[in-house]
């Protein structure tokens, strides 16, 4: 127990904390099989989607990411990185291990890809280094939630 607490303290000194741009709406994390392992809603104005909807959207997006990658007219296949719609934009960062970080945000937000990489480093610090966490399972780590809130609110 004391070893885990010590790891938490060390990591908090080295993590860069910077403000997430205002207007980020939702974060999804999808494992390499296409299952949703984490959802977080940041916006206060919009009602969050029901859990079943989130699960369905995540698996649909996972398959569409793969199909869109295969459609490429040139070069090796990579999946969807950004998507623009009229009321929101979506950015997806796929790690070399196959985990996808999906962020929905308002259309005016820029530099979402750096934010996603920061979230990835938070993930590798607080989720993967957690000895009680099994890979590809739903994420229920308090420190990860706290650090995400710090990233969002800048406190």
């Amino acid at each position, binding site marked *: 127990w004391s070893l885990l607490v010590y790891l938490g303290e060390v990591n908090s000194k080295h993590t860069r904390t910077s403000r997430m741009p205002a207007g980020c709406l939702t974060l999804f994390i999808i494992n390499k099989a296409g299952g949703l392992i984490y959802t977080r809603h940041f916006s206060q104005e919009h009602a969050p989607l029901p859990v079943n909807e989130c699960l369905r959207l995540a698996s649909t997006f996972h398959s569409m990411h793969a199909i869109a990658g295969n459609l490429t007219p040139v070069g*090796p296949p990579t999946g969807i990185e950004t998507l623009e719609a009229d009321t929101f934009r979506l950015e997806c960062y796929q790690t070399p291990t196959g985990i996808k970080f999906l962020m929905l945000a308002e259309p005016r937000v820029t530099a979402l890809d750096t934010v996603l990489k920061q979230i990835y480093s938070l993930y590798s610090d607080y989720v993967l280094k957690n000895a009680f966490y099994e890979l590809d399972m739903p994420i229920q780590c308090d420190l990860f939630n706290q650090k995400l809130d710090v990233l969002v609110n800048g406190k």
Partner: protein
Amino acid sequence: LYYEDWNRQKKPKSLPEEQKLIFGLLFSLKHTVCAMRPGGDGKMTVDGLQSYATSTYRLHYFETATGLRFILITNPNVPSLRECLRQVYSGIYVEYVTKNPLQSLGTPITSTYFAQSLTKYIRGLPYFLST
């Protein structure tokens, strides 16, 4: 109804297969986008999906209220060409296809005027030659 490529480097294994794949992908993507919209109640709307990008290409999508879909695939660094697709619809499609008495709705487009003016318009876009 119509397919044309300029500057395409990697040919697909089979064109009808690819077209079916694109159609299926866009159909599900459009539904997903409409479901994901914040503040929306999941209703379908014509304006939902506008474009998406991977690291190798960017797909622009424009749908009219009559159910016609215009899809353009470009380099990833091109900004949203939705207005251009709207121009293709209003300036070229309406002119050469809708007003053509020999062209019945829903059949493949065979008009050479359409092909020529489309090629001229696309080649005239400032993004065409930049790689």
